[in-house]
């Protein structure tokens, strides 16, 4: 028993990730934390998407289950779990059964390397970004097999579209990523890194987020990735594989109940995963904003109050809406519930002001906040852009993003090596 406690404590002093320290206990804890956090994020995202979309379209959105529909995702989850699980008679049973698990596995496995902080990642691989791109590209296999195994027309067409789309956009995505990896090699040893933590540390060392590096090259790369990642996750305006006006629901038309909810879970966690890649590569990962302009201890202190302030803001919104609830006896429980929710959020906010907590959650908070920004963008796109036609989609992928990505890669390499190139040229012209 004593040895076990020592084993647990031995990790706390190290400044490695649990995987890096080889500590199985803490690795398990981190895996569970990430899994629970992701599930909560997906549930929250479900509610937020319906609410925000509704407000964009001047509707109320879910209002019935819980105050302002806050319990709607839970009601939905219970409904999905209780629904009958149908496998079509003509379907390929085995493949139909495996397909959702491939998608979920691919979507969740990538979080092994997502760096929530310098030590807050399950592990740090030296091929981190390559691993993320590779494993997330496996999810297309699940989608394709799901569409094929359903043995029905709409799912098959959806699967075909999905495979064509995801393979095409992976190319542009990869080129944008490689330009960032080139930027990581701008140090004294001129060795780049593929590790997710290493990429953020490179941004820290260079004192600049890669989105601003070699302006506007970093920005262009970021835009290519930001477009390609929406196409990779099959979201609007690139949601042709599940275009409901043409294909009913695309590749998951024949799925119901729990299996369908697995696809749902995988879609949202894949969105979070690609957003984490974008945040890590271009937006400085866990680093706080304005590392240069607002540096020094005072500003560090000011920025460390942000996590607590955010939760206090959420609590304030809750209390404001508690006060606005209808004063009817029927709404009594809902009003109390909302007030209690606000109190819990406020309490979390207060806890986050304690110095010990403040110093530990800062990096996780900034990472999550940046990812949350991307999640809002996803909803915004869905509310704003009309769906692309398939030939337009292919044109954007192959004739716009791919050439831009190639040019970007070459330009980044030239700009990064400009002094060496200049020296070489001088050597050639003036021997």
């Amino acid at each position, binding site marked *: 028993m004593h040895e076990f406690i020592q084993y647990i404590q031995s990790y706390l002093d190290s400044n490695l990730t649990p995987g890096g320290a080889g500590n199985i206990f803490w690795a398990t804890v981190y895996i569970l934390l990430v899994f629970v956090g992701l599930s909560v994020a997906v549930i929250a995202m479900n509610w937020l998407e319906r609410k925000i979309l509704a407000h964009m379209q001047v509707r109320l959105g879910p209002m019935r289950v819980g105050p302002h529909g806050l319990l709607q995702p839970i009601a939905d989850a219970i409904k999905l779990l209780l629904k009958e699980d149908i496998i079509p008679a003509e379907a390929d049973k085995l493949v139909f059964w495996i397909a959702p698990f491939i998608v979920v596995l691919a979507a969740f496995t990538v979080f092994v390397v997502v760096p929530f902080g310098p030590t807050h990642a399950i592990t740090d691989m*030296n*091929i981190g970004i390559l691993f993320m791109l590779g494993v997330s*590209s496996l999810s*297309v*296999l699940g989608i394709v097999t799901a569409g094929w195994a359903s043995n029905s027309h709409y799912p098959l067409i959806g699967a075909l579209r999905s*495979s064509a789309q995801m393979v095409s956009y992976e190319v542009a995505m990869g080129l944008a990523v490689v330009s960032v990896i080139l930027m990581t090699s701008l140090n004294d040893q001129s060795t780049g890194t593929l590790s997710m933590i290493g990429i953020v540390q490179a941004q820290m060392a260079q004192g600049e987020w890669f989105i601003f590096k070699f302006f506007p090259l970093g920005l262009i790369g970021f835009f290519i990735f930001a477009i390609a990642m929406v196409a990779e996750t099959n979201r609007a305006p690139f949601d042709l594989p599940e275009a409901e006006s043409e294909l009913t629901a695309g590749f998951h038309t024949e799925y119901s109940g729990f299996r369908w909810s697995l696809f749902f879970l995988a879609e949202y966690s894949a969105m979070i995963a690609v957003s984490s890649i974008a945040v890590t590569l271009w937006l400085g990962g866990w680093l706080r904003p304005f590392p240069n302009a607002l540096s020094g201890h005072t500003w560090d202190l000011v920025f460390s109050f942000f996590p607590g302030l955010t939760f206090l803001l959420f609590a304030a919104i809750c209390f404001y809406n508690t006060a606005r609830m209808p004063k009817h006896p029927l709404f009594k429980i809902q009003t109390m519930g909302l007030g209690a929710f606000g109190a819990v959020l406020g309490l979390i906010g207060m806890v986050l002001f304690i110095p010990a907590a403040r110093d530990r959650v800062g990096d996780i908070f900034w990472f999550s906040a940046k990812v949350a920004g991307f999640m809002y963008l996803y909803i915004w796109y869905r509310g704003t852009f009309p769906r692309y036609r398939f030939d337009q989609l292919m044109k954007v992928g192959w004739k716009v993003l791919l050439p831009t990505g190639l040019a970007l890669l070459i330009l980044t390499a030239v700009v990064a090596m400009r002094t060496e190139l200049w020296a070489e040229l001088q050597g050639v012209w003036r021997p």
Partner: protein
Amino acid sequence: MNPVGTNPPVATAFFFYMLAATMIIGGVLVITRKNAVHSAMALITTLLAQAGLYLMLYAPFVAGVQIILYAGGIMVLFLFVIMLISIERSLKERQFNKQWLIGIVAAAALGGLFIAVYTTTTKGQPLFPAGRMFYGESQNTQGIASLLFDRYTGTYMFAFEIASLLLLVAIIGAVVMAKKRI
């Protein structure tokens, strides 16, 4: 991240046998399944297990590229094509031709060659080294890059470019054959 030796190596014999068994079972399933999609999925399993073997050889970059290119890219295109074939008709077709005798002879010859190589000794030393050399994991990506691009040690640049030229020719050929009018 760790210097080699601080942790017990993950690459134990158990993992090797597990991955090797997965590969062999997957490979057998690829040629015995009548349904082409099932074969393709077995092939994906084999390729992923192979990526695991690369990881055990401390070649993470090769493993990552294997997953991206083979499992994520090429197999998707395979499935894309297979899905457009009428499975019902291909299920009825006979899968094997009568060349099993030659097949067995060839397989036995290859197996014999493997055993011969494994048991041969030159000057009392087996052909295989007794132990495995340990490389730092982080050197793999840089090592490949310096083999390809380094001014002094880059000896494989030419072969690499020739291979990419071959692929380019194949792509252009496919376009020419598929399109009547370009």
